[in-house]
């Protein structure tokens, strides 16, 4: 196995191009587990930890540009205002040690349906920047996940950044696990209200072969939500929203939980996230939280 250590983005892209079977590695919190368990024996590892651009975040117009290699700890510290849902999701990832190493880029590269980052990226309509020696392109998170662990990422591309729209309304994230920390999601859910465009965004994880949006729930809520004053919604609306989120799921029974439980928790999380959003909306606090 070759171990490549590019120190610039150009070198990294060249290495990627030359080793389409290689595996990029950043924090190693997913990749090393797979290597240790002998589930993968790639021809090359491309260590991206020395590429400076990947570990930075900054402003890109009215969006936040998050380097794919920024660890969760820094997202929690710096982006809880600019990307509230993603910051909440980051807080729920694993343990402090893992959060010091793990990255959103790694989460996207691994594309586990249980990954914590996917629901917030879907709900907030984030874009993912993919680069290769051929150039750079941006793919909406909503178009990124194709099938089980398959994404729009091409064999010669690296995930370089995530572009996060400035929040214009409340954003929520919640994750179910049978332990109060350091647990893989049994189900997770994110909700984002875009008050400027009067759009509702959802993201659901660990409840189907890929992370997905609950589109019928989004449309339903867009019509029902009081975008002027954020008046409390009737219980029937909240319940219906939960049902629509749960109905969008295609969960399985596995060692982490039953399909019925996953569906049930999605309905509960969706109802609660909606109630919190109404409260937050009325406080008007999330816009600049």
């Amino acid at each position, binding site marked *: 196995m070759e171990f490549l250590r590019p120190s610039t983005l150009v070198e990294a892209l060249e290495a990627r191009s030359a080793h389409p079977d290689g595996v990029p590695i950043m924090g190693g919190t997913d990749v090393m587990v797979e290597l*240790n*368990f*002998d589930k993968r024996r790639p021809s090359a590892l491309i260590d991206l930890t020395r590429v400076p651009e990947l570990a930075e975040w900054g402003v890109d117009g009215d969006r936040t540009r998050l380097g794919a290699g920024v660890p969760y700890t820094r997202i929690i510290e710096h982006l809880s205002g600019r990307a509230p849902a993603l910051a*909440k999701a980051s*807080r*729920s990832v694993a*343990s402090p040690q893992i959060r010091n190493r793990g990255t959103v880029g790694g989460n996207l590269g691994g594309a586990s349906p249980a990954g914590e980052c996917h629901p917030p990226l879907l709900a907030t309509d984030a874009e993912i920047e993919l680069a290769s020696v051929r150039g750079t392109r941006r793919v909406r998170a909503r178009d990124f996940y194709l099938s089980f662990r398959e994404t729009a990422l091409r064999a010669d591309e690296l995930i370089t950044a995530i572009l996060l729209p400035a929040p214009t309304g409340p954003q*929520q*994230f*919640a*994750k*179910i*696990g*049978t*332990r*109060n*920390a*350091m*647990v*893989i*999601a*049994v189900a*997770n859910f994110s909700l984002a209200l875009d008050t400027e465009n009067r759009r509702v965004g959802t993201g659901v994880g660990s409840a189907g072969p890929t992370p997905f949006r609950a589109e019928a729930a989004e449309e339903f809520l867009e019509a029902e939500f009081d975008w002027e004053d954020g008046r409390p919604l009737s219980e029937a609306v909240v319940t219906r929203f939960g049902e629509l989120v749960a109905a969008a799921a295609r969960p399985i029974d*596995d*060692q*982490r*939980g*039953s399909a*019925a*439980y996953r569906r*049930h*928790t999605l309905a*509960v*999380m969706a109802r*609660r996230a909606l*109630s*919190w959003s109404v409260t937050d909306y009325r406080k008007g606090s999330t816009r600049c939280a």
Partner: protein
Amino acid sequence: MATTTRTVTDLTSTTKDGVGASPRRPDGTLKVTGEFAYSSDMWMEDMLWGATLRSPHPHARIHGIDVTEALRLPGVYAVLTHEDVPGEKRYGLEYQDQPVLAFDKVRYKGEAVAIVAADHPETARRALERIEVDYEVLPPVSDSRRAALDPEYPLVHEKGELPEHPEYNQSGNRVRYQPIRTGAFAESPSSQEAHREALERLRAEADAVVTTEYEVGMQDQAFLGPESGMAIPAEDGGVDLYVATQWLHVDQRQIAPALGLPQEKVRLTLAGVGGAFGAREDLSMQIHACMLALRTGKPVKFVYNREESFYGHVHRHPAKMRYEHGAKADGTLLYATLEIIVDGGAYASATPAVVGVASSLGIGPYEVPNVLVDAYGVYTTNPPCGAMRGFGAVQACFGYESQMDRLAKELGMHPVDLRLKNAMAQGSRIITGQEIDMPLPMAEMLERCRDLPMPVERTELEDPSDQRTLPGGVAGTTRGEGVVRGVGYGLGLKNLCFSEGFDDYSTARVRLEVVAGEPVVLVHTAAAEVGQGLVTIKGQIARTELGVEKVVIAPSDTQVGSAGSSSASRQSYMTGGAVRTACASVRAEVFELARRKGFVPQGREDVELALEGGKVVSAVDGVLVSLAELLGESAENGTVVERTREYHHRPTEMIDPELGQGSSHTQFGMCVHRAVVDVDVELGLVKVVALDAVQDVGKVMHPQQLAGQIQGGSTQGLGLALMEEIQVKDSEIRNPSFTDYLIPTILDTPPMRIDVLEHPDPHSPYGLRGAGEPPTLSSTPAIVAAVRDATGRPLTHAPVRPEDIVGIDL
């Protein structure tokens, strides 16, 4: 934190860091700084790496094993199968029923089939892939109830394969069947018709009857240091094995016959142990490493990886239990019946002894005049189960405590009051007829536990919106919605030390000499330090008994007699007792020397002497002579006083196979727990808010380590209450990793108020009682009771699953 009731056993030791103090562990700093050498850290320049080929099937016939391609791989030194086992082809703790390497059949997924030694772990792994095994897959034999009760169920071990064990009524897939009959049920012990009639009569007399089926899942010991060790071939044709284990001599007793060597040619030294909890009672890589070392003439190291470790050791027996209790309106228990089936998996391991505990303690510490128990331990093709902290008493405790709560609810009583009404005490007899001939302050403990201060309500928290205080934790699933508080109680009775007629003993060698002008004590035992802190206790006892501050603890090995197992909460009692006895003998010799050398004034030979501060002291004349002067420098032909002594606890007996009567236990221990939980009743998630305990330990040897034992045991019980289960489906483990086998994190572990009582046991050294296991029993039912209190759900399965709380059928 711990409040203590002082008693007459209090030792006012004049020697620093003696019994009752909290000296630092000799290995503590190394462990905290990461420098301690665990068994997996061992290294030799020319060593080879061992690896194990394991069966991918739970049940299959083996038609052939071809190792040709594996041997061809450069770097591979040996590939061995059952044909290469030099001696006995089977081994076992109690029954010799487990193949060293599988032949004819595999009986569980993960069973060892072949072993490899290579110059690199990766090479060894690749060699495993090249071994061809011709399997004929058989259907799994996975239903423990059918294994116990259905004579038509396929046999895991075909008749004639194994030695008979008539003392356990072994037949079919039953490893052991143990009935217990008292009162009306003892009148015609084996007539089912008579039992039915007696039961009908008792039911008619009872004002309340509760009948429930319970299940306890397969818990893993979840030690952090995987199975590992190194075997080094010796010039005398023997082998030196450095290994993390719980009992060096029982390993030696099983390894030597398999290697075809006399015991003395198989020498064991304890390597650094990263936790045990029962999982290291059975052999794992020991014989395999020795076989490969002897074959290749090179040191061979094994380290299991985490997934392999889940297949490499026994687990806690899962149990299926049917309980019925009947009581009068005032709460007085009238009768109890229990059918308990524990699943031993493919090989016996400790199953017979687990059945002995589960049956004899099956109804708990309650006075019940009429009892009917049927306890079964069975073979299946599920993962083998054996020893784990609590050992059969954990499973039963979940059952009988759940029954007490149901009965209390049925009768409209407080759960503590019902328990008080039927509480045992010193002088009571458990269902085997054995008298509890030591203090058992159960009523006092229950009252103290009930009266402990409650944790503050959620609304009184400094920041009630802090996610870390809520069920679901940092995953942010609630801001308080759906959260309901509950309170529950649990207590458990545990036998301590080995039971049922086993001649349980420990050996200690103690040497006193003067080095560089200072008296020094060397304590040498074969006892396994597995993290529990025996290494500290041995030093404390030597200091107290010999009045010498400087104590050196020799490495544990087989160059001294057996210490027995670091199991059954027994080492402070047994090896502590052995060290104390050896010290007493050394002390007597020192006094004799002092008299002989004329340091004791004439006419005062009968005056009591003591060793204090490195000096011989007379009750009348004060300091007589320093040890330095009396013994002289050992390097300059001074006197070295060395004694080796065995300590045996009082004898016990088997319970009889018909009525289950007999004094089978050495000592009893008890812990009482009160759990307070916050449950998100809509999502089925739980946050334990407080887990407070009252435990009687007879005598506190080391307050800090004791608190650690109680906290650790309580937390392991919390794991079983809420998350820890090896999920087995069709005999296959679904979650063999710490990703999916969840153990409590610090966020799951609540503050614990610990109230320690010291009512001395007149039979034990210092009056002490084994302390490690009782909290593991009681914390599980206390937490589940609290969750029931919050949710109103029956919750008959431990661990409680979120689905059980929200009411989704599994």
